[in-house]
């Protein structure tokens, strides 16, 4: 019974021997695999950097100064945009990633599903199929080694993994239709659906079960996600950005969680926390990180993501219309949407539909909020082991107890964030090297790992279990009340910061 209960959660129960855990626990294997991928990916980019890197950086600096001068001289906006594009191309070509052609996700398609496998954005026709095959082999080997080290059969895992990977490919295929992408219906939703379809019709076949390892895939993906949380970008929008993204968001998160506990009396604290985080921070990625940190059940994570994606579609469509209707400025509207719409892509799209100024502000506010994921996941993990989980004696846990219970993959997540933040700011051209590593390697693998995780959740979930959490409508009420507070507080803070206190500076920035 205890084992059954542990299996339902995103995080398994800790054991007592740290040395043993280092070699056999899923948490530590997620750290080792994620760490190995990050190390190989970064070294590949680092040793492939051009010999004339410093000259190219000087050229970028010179072009940037030229652009600066054009802006000061109030040159035509078309000329500035052309120059910006040139600069952007120079930057993106600065640190080529030798692993990029070898790894791929499925591509966007519209009329023919085969385009998802055969057409690649840059015109490289054969790359996608080969890239997907390499991802399959790399993932199979890495997770297979981890599975073997945890005492399970590699052979059974390998056969099952190919099937789960095939299902993940189907999910990506569904998610990558241009209309589905337009409405921000991200791949976790379709991965979940593909898994649910099988488990609730013919039942999950026994031979697939060895590769149904939700936690393992999620934790490894989260370690890779850590490398994207570059702390230097926190300061990108100065005081207004910090106030809108880093002051309002934690207030909304804590208030929503407290509301769920004290007023709505939601029995599952982990469900309450996961919904509060995905609603207040940044949707799916925040839900995944928080659910893992607070040991939420799989169906709780599914529910939180389902609600977040549904409300995102509504908000990204309705908010630009409301902003126009009330005659708000683009800057205020952009900041409001950046702080409230859950999903990052949806924020960018809604901002772009409102106008260029709104797009800039919305993307920047969302970026700063994205960085909050690391702090939230770490804070929630600490809070859970210190204050929420019960000790056998019922007393406050000791420092050792906290260490034993702490989800160790969170350490890998935070370490990756700190390490790559330092590398990006201290190395010559570090920012470009880290960006190239993320875009060409770790983003692709992380996407596949999360997709595998959501297929696994679907394969383990029963529709009845999902429906049980919706009984009484409390999770929905929690989301609606939390989002209402979020909308009100973010609008107030955005108005104060962008329209009153820093009005002139912001106007000059977006001009």
């Amino acid at each position, binding site marked *: 019974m205890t084992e059954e209960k542990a299996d339902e959660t995103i995080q398994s129960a800790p054991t007592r021997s740290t040395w043993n855990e280092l070699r056999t626990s899923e948490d530590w294997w997620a750290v080792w695999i994620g760490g190995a991928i990050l190390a190989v990916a970064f070294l590949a980019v680092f040793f492939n950097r051009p010999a004339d890197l410093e000259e190219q950086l000087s050229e970028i600096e010179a072009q940037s100064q030229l652009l600066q001068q054009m802006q000061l001289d109030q040159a035509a906006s078309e000329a500035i945009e052309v120059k910006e594009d040139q600069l952007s191309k120079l930057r993106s070509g600065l640190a080529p990633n030798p692993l990029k052609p070898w790894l791929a996700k499925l591509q966007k398609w519209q009329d023919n599903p085969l385009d998802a496998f055969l057409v690649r954005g840059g015109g490289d026709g054969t790359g996608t199929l080969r890239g997907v095959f390499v991802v399959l082999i790399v993932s199979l080997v890495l997770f297979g080694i981890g599975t073997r080290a945890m005492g399970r059969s590699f052979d059974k895992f390998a056969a099952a993994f190919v099937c789960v990977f095939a299902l993940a490919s189907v999910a990506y295929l569904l998610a990558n239709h241009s209309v589905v992408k*337009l409405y921000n219906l991200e791949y976790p939703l379709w991965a979940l659906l593909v898994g649910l379809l099988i488990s609730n019709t013919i039942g999950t076949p026994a031979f697939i079960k060895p590769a149904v390892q939700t936690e393992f895939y999620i934790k490894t993906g989260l370690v890779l996600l850590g490398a994207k949380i570059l702390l230097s970008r926190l300061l*990108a929008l100065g*005081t207004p950005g910090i106030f809108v993204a880093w002051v309002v968001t934690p207030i909304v998160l804590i208030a929503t969680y407290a509301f769920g506990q004290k007023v709505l009396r939601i029995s599952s604290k982990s469900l309450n926390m996961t919904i509060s985080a995905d609603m207040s921070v*940044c949707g799916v990625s925040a839900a995944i990180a928080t659910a893992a940190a607070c040991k939420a059940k799989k169906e709780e994570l599914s529910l939180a993501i389902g609600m977040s994606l549904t409300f995102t579609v509504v908000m990204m469509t309705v908010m630009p219309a409301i902003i126009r209707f009330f005659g708000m400025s683009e800057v205020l509207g952009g900041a409001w949407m950046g702080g409230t719409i859950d999903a990052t892509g949806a924020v*960018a799209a809604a901002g772009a539909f409102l106008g260029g100024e709104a*797009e800039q502000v919305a993307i920047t506010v*969302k970026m700063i909020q994205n960085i909050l994921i690391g702090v939230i996941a770490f804070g929630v993990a600490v809070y859970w082991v210190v204050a929420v989980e019960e000790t056998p004696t019922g007393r406050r846990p000791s420092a050792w107890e906290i260490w034993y219970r702490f989800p160790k993959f969170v350490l890998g997540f935070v370490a990756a964030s700190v390490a790559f933040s330092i590398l990006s700011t201290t190395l010559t051209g570090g920012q470009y090297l880290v960006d190239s590593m993320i875009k060409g390697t770790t983003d692709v693998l992380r996407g596949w790992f999360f997709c595998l995780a959501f297929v696994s959740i679907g394969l383990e979930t029963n529709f009845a279990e999902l429906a049980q959490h919706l009984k009484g409508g409390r999770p929905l009420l929690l989301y609606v009340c939390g989002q209402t507070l979020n909308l009100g507080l973010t609008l107030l803070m955005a108005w104060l910061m962008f329209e009153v206190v820093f009005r002139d*500076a*912001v106007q000059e920035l977006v001009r």
Partner: protein
Amino acid sequence: MTEKPETRSNKPRRNMRGWAQLWAACGLIAVVWIGVLPRLAESPRVQARLEYLEARRIDPSAMFYTELEGLDRVLGRLERFHQRQPRALWLPE
């Protein structure tokens, strides 16, 4: 909890029903993704939105800011603004 125990006679029937449901769902998905969505994508309004976002290099399904190609331009503008006026976004005038 109240489910009837599976017997030899009702198990194959359940399996067949499961397979039928799965094939029906797959059929529905195929119709929507291969039939309905491509038509929707061709409607002028959706086409205009897709082209607009593509021109601005925005992936509306991006899960994290690093997946937005258009961010380079925004970050570049911010960087140049901070060089020009280092204190403007930190202290109110």
